[in-house]
């Protein structure tokens, strides 16, 4: 149930924020408004009239425009070309560049969006590209603009520019719905805010009447968190030290901005935070799949910064990636083969250059019984397995050899109840064995109940690290939304 009886009312001419963490239902709600999903129940009322939005085109006809988090722009085309792409009204098949350019400039000047219509999109900065996206909506005469996490890709200066643009738009009568998880932004820009949690709209408040702690509490709730039965933590030696890590994401923007923390043997350090704040990049840097531009990673005293994936795997580091089928396994290959994906170079699985299929087979049989992998045989292709079984294969492979560091990214994502339980037990058992576990998860409950300590990532920085025992969910919620824990310095401040 992505959206459960959500009531949302937005007034004309206001900036209305939708606040919530992952899975709260913000994106689903917006997709319904934009015609990408159809609601099962309920209705949408626009200006007093009930409407049915069946597709993005329909949404546009109701003057609803959307600026996606990941831009839908064609890099090799110019700004003007991107703006008119997909439009079929107007001046027939021919594109009058001058006319279009003029109209674009008119709109741009009106709202202070400086952009050159002839420039090619790939030449623009991210902030400028976002302006093109806004222009696209404005060109199509949108009255209501939905913006999905627009500041996730902007620099602070660009954020200021965006906000002043939004204010200008609102002054002209537009309505803006602004999806975010950052409290700072909510407080700064919005008139009212609706908080979503687990698919329900919890409350709608006037921004002027509220404050960050209150919003954070609404965002994460105050229920008693279900605590798993687990042994006392037996924290051992320091295992992993991460110091001032910097890295870029796939789009070339900074994803990690000075992340620092440490992890000990025998403990689970949970990484909480809304996805997109550097968690993926952190896991990839630690496992040798992404280059760190600055900073150090030390494993049991040895500097392993920017070592190759193979070397890190050989150093007894296990990685359970989020994308099971895209990265964690080779779906077209069999269970037997997938289980030796990393260890095939070593005995007993290979002698010289030859693989020992029998050894691999024995290994597979053992793993299937130990991890209860349900499949017709060891030579079944992984792609026909259920999500839970695929994850069992990944775990069986990664945890063989008793790794000392385990990085688990969203390990129970998409799994059924039984598999989820099993995976959690396995991780706890590893921790009892003395391994250090870095648990990245969007499920705050999971993080809080499984971890011994909890670290919150926001904007590629550590907002704070707390003991799980005494942690209050509101505190964590605040950190997830951008509030630093007292005493934690900004990493960029350290540089100065």
């Amino acid at each position, binding site marked *: 149930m992505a959206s459960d009886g959500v009531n949302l009312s937005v007034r004309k001419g206001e900036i209305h924020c939708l606040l919530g963490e992952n899975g709260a239902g913000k994106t689903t709600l917006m997709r319904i408004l934009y015609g990408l999903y159809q609601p099962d129940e309920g209705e949408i009322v626009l200006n007093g009239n009930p409407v049915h939005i069946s597709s993005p085109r329909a949404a546009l006809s109701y003057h609803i425009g959307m600026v996606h988090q990941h831009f839908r722009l*064609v890099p090799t085309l110019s700004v003007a070309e991107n703006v008119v792409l997909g439009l079929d009204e107007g001046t027939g098949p*021919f594109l009058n560049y001058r006319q279009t350019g003029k109209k674009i400039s008119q709109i741009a000047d009106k709202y202070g969006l400086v952009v050159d219509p002839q420039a090619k999109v790939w030449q623009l900065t991210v902030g400028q590209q976002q302006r093109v996206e806004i222009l696209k909506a404005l060109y199509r005469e949108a009255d209501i603009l939905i913006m999905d996490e627009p500041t996730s890709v902007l620099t602070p200066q660009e954020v200021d520019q965006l906000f002043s643009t939004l204010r200008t738009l609102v002054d002209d009568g537009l309505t803006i719905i602004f999806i975010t998880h950052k409290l700072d932004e909510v407080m700064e820009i919005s008139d009212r805010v609706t908080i979503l949690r687990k698919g329900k709209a919890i409350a709608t408040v006037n921004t002027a009447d509220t404050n960050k702690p209150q919003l954070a509490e609404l965002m994460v709730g105050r229920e008693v968190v279900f605590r798993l039965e687990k042994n006392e933590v037996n924290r051992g030696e320091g295992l992993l030290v991460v110091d001032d890590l910097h890295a870029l994401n796939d789009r070339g923007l900074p994803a990690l901005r000075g992340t620092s923390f440490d992890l000990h043997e025998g403990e689970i350090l949970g990484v909480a935070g809304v996805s997109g704040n550097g968690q993926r990049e952190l896991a990839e840097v630690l496992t040798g799949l992404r280059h760190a531009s600055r900073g150090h990673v030390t494993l049991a005293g040895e500097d392993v910064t920017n070592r190759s994936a193979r070397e890190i795997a050989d150093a007894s580091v296990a990685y359970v990636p989020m994308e099971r089928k895209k990265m964690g396994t080779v779906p077209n290959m069999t269970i037997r083969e997938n289980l030796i994906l990393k260890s095939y170079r070593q005995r007993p699985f290979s002698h010289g250059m030859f693989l020992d299929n029998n050894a691999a087979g024995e290994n597979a049989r053992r793993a299937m019984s130990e991890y209860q992998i349900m499949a017709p045989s060891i030579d079944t292709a992984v792609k026909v397995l259920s999500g839970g079984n695929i994850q069992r294969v990944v775990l069986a492979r990664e945890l063989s050899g008793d790794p000392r560091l385990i990085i688990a990214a969203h390990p129970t994502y998409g799994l059924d109840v039984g598999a989820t339980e099993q995976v959690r037990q396995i991780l706890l058992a590893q921790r009892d064995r003395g391994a250090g576990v870095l648990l990245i998860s969007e499920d705050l409950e999971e993080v809080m109940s499984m971890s011994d300590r909890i670290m919150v990532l926001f904007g590629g920085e550590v907002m704070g690290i707390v003991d799980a025992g005494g942690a209050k969910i509101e505190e964590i919620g605040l950190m997830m939304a951008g509030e630093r824990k007292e005493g934690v310095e900004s990493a960029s401040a350290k540089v100065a």
Partner: protein
Amino acid sequence: MGWESWVISTFARALAYGTPLLLGTLGEIFAERSGVLNLGIEGMMIMGAYSAFVVTYTTGHPWLGILVAAVVGGAFSLIHAFATVTLKANQVVSGLALTMLGLGLSGVLGRSWVGLPLFTTLRNVTVPGLSAIPIIGPGLFTRQNLLVYITMLLVPILWYILFHTRIGITIRAVGEDPAAADSLGVNVDRVRYLCVVVGGVFAGIAGAYLSVAYRPAWTEGMTGGMGWIVIALTIFAFWNPVYGLLGSYLFAALYHLSYRLQTWVSPELLKAMPYVFAIIILIFVSRGTLQKRMGSPAALGVPYTRGEE
């Protein structure tokens, strides 16, 4: 023969031989711009050549032959479009299969037509006025058939369509980032079908030109690998019709000159040049910004499925 007549004859031959190349290239540019690699051109060309010959021979109307060739080429390419766009099959295999099919089919069907003489070919036309310009006049505008001039005129038209009209923008968007285009309401499949069929139609006409005008006859395999040259020329043209014109005529001129230039350069190596250049160009434009400025359409060769991220 003074050097003047040498130049003139080179121009003339370049135009004559370059026209089918140009037609094929123009068509392939459109197909590839929408993201579909069409390796079946050779098959489509030869089927065009065959059908044009048969129709012209039996009816005595060359233009009818060309028309039928266009339809045949288009029909063939429709198979390719269906396989690659709707069924999302591998574009390479589909194209190669069509080439084999086309070569085979034309060879089979054309057996009884081999060696028959064709009397009703395209008339030659001389452009008044322009043909009076020294050197260029006699070279380019004298006594070429109408199809040559039509093709030349097509170039600026197609260039304009591709870069200055809405449909051109849509085509280029589909070839670069079909997901973005799709999210804006563009029917990616329909655009690709259109472009592939355009490619097939042009290939058919190119083949028709060969059998009805250039060398009015039918021989098995008379396209002689022209389809493959077109693929290289498409790259050489940076997927731009104007450069396509330059490339096609240049290649045709070189082809003609290759025997004259024998004493300096081996004709075979000269003929290999387009292919070498194509690879060099590909290397050249594979780097970052150049890729964006002049490189191949980013989604070339990749079938598009909505929702695949």
